[in-house]
């Protein structure tokens, strides 16, 4: 198996589907000649031509609107937002039109919107957000947040295959930092299925995206304390794998929900509430959340570091739960 970066795995997944299925095309700002702001679609225009790798104007509404129309007409569009933050411009097309079309008219809208998201590189408030909870809240939309190269490929293919609008949050900080073996052949990773990233008995971390790695580092430190930490990588925030979360919660009875998004109304709140409702009798400690504070993402590197949950924060949280 070749070793691919997280970014290469996304390219690989997209390329695989575009080669396999003529209905799949990619549209976005600078995805063609330039190969995308992060070079995910580098070489795509050469291979697939400018009708399947479309450079769009700076108009997210138009991009998502075009995808929605094309999907209704039977295509399998993939839209790229240059940064996930810009999705707000396309809110109406996505939330009002795409998410509700199937419900109103019975026509599926199989679009995939790729959203380079997350911080960690001083991108500031417009280029660092993790807006998955906003869309997880909208019935009719699915939200995918891969953490590993293998999942990045398999989940992207599932997203493109899915008959619903799927928001595919790819974490920018993982693009070139994370590298792992990825199967060459085409495969899918089912939406709504979590992955046990690490087995443990004493406390569970429920997380997704880049925070999986933060949790992993923290868990290694806890090993030194003699406490074993289980990490559940949700992989898909909507639909989310409630059964796996509850199973882990029942197993360890202590749960830390960790995400890079801001705290209030973050998707961790939904998870914590569900555990409280459905696994109350199996809890041995209050469910704990670690998330970013409720502010915009700061530019300043030290401030951004204070904003995004760090390994030390997670270690402290885990120790607190273990000691509870």
């Amino acid at each position, binding site marked *: 198996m070749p070793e691919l970066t997280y970014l290469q795995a996304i390219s690989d997944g997209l390329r695989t589907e575009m080669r396999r299925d003529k209905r799949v095309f990619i549209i976005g700002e600078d995805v063609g000649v330039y190969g995308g702001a992060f070079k995910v679609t580098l070489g795509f225009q050469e291979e697939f031509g400018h009708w399947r790798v479309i450079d769009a104007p700076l108009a997210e509404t138009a991009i998502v609107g075009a995808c929605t129309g094309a999907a209704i007409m039977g295509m399998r569009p993939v839209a790229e937002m240059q940064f996930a933050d810009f999705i707000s411009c396309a809110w109406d097309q996505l939330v009002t039109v795409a998410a509700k079309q199937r419900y109103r008219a019975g026509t599926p809208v199989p679009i995939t919107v790729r959203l380079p998201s997350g911080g960690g590189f001083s991108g500031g408030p417009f280029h660092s957000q993790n807006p998955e909870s906003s869309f997880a809240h909208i019935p009719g939309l699915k939200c995918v947040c891969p953490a590993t190269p293998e999942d990045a490929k398999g989940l992207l293919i599932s997203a493109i295959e899915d008959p619903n609008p799927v928001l595919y949050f790819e974490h920018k900080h993982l693009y070139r930092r994370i590298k792992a073996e990825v199967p060459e052949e085409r495969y899918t990773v089912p939406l709504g299925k979590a992955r046990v990233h690490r087995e443990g008995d004493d406390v569970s971390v429920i997380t997704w995206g880049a925070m999986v790695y933060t949790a992993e580092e923290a868990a290694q430190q806890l090993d030194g304390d003699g406490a074993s930490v289980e990490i559940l990588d949700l992989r898909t925030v909507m639909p989310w794998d409630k059964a796996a979360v509850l199973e882990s919660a029942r197993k360890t*009875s202590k749960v830390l929900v960790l995400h890079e998004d801001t705290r209030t109304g973050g998707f961790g709140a939904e998870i914590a509430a569900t555990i409280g409702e459905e696994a109350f*009798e199996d*809890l*041995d400690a209050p469910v704990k959340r670690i998330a970013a504070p409720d502010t915009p993402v700061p530019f300043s590197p030290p401030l951004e570091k204070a904003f995004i949950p760090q390994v030390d924060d997670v270690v402290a949280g885990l120790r607190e739960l273990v*000691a*509870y």
Partner: protein
Amino acid sequence: MATTEAIDVVMPQMGVSVSEGTITKWLKEQGEHVEADEPLLEISTDKVDTEVPSPGSGVLTEILVQEGATVDVGTKLAVIGGEAAEPTSGSEPQAREAPPEPATQAAADASMAAASEGVGDVAPSSQADSAPPREAAGATSNGKTFVSPVVAKIASEHGVDPSQVTGTGRGGRVTKKDILGFIESGAQAPPETPAPAPPPAQPPEPAPAPQPQAAPPPAPAPAAAPATAAQAAPSQPGESFEPMTAMRKGIAEHMRRSLDTSAHVTSAIEVDMSKVTAIRTKLKKEYQENYGVNPTYLIFVARAAAETLREYPWVNGEIRGDQIVTRGYVNLGFAVELQDGKGLIVPVVKNAETLNLLGLAKAVTDIAQRARDKNLLPDEVQGGTFTITNPGGYGTFHGTPVISQPQAAILGTYAVVKRPWVVQDDMGEDVIAIRPIMNLTLTYDHRLVDGALAGRFLRDLREKLETWDEAAY
């Protein structure tokens, strides 16, 4: 290292005769800063509820005795400032030399309903003494050690009492690991079923293992249960249960003991309150405007009783051993119902014989208000020589109160009711008039006070009320 020296907070001596106190509430949490003299905790003794001010400024480093626990006077309750003390050293509540007292005085102290505590926590008094105090964390604000849902579930499935398990969690909390380890090690108490605790007498089903909707977690069986649970009848459908407060227990014990001690006899007399009513109407405005107090019928009766008692020292007396105690003063106790209607306390107006009507009105108003607000000083519920109870507020016209031990008598005042009354007119003829009549009862200990004496006392008391001499009082 902390910069300041640690200051110990100890269970204060609330009145000479009090040897122990129950912590009803910590007003500060461990780790919180507290200023000198800032209220730190609330305690309840068999005398009084009160706040304990902080003996110094600093961080409340350690709470050693939790809410609900009863410990001896002088027991270290918490540490302020300094470093967190080793839990082993100071934490053991040791019986400090509580000044031994004559039995009778001890009895006196347990005066009627004096045990006071807010509603709520059960204070498993004596047992709590020996239990090692837990730290604040992990224990909930009501002083009971927190049992997490999963621990409660496991405990119920295996019929284990979590309090038997050594906790390693925060503040000594029993964790899931602890209880599972306990069960695995077979340290489980002999298969005796968790004694049918009063509420839901459920057999400890061996519960099939992972049952998500297990039976409701059993309440962490109160350690105090055994004694009472032994005689408790099984619960019946439609019954509900609530724990007796320390005050309720105190009242119950005192009432029973009083009836077992004194030979209770009650005599009653009818008093024409016309004169008092007239004076009261006259004084009312002045008293309220100038002094903010109300000259109630009770005050008139109390004033007259204090005066009469000086002439009947035995009614104001006490049997102590084989001696009869009499005094040259009258300390009047007043039974005050607490606001929640679930208890009463008897604050005492000392040297009532030295107060005129206004002085007595002010004293009684003040002390009754503070009794309701739980702001009484310990000494203010002690040392009564005679008690007045006023159940007439609800219209009753007769009753047989229980004597507050070790006093000799208790006076009951009842509703003032307008009645057709036979009086003599100017011509010496009998006519029927409408008069405000109040019944008074004197319930006395016949061991000391004979019926004739009680009758004379009541007669003289009536005389004072019916011929109220404004100049004298």
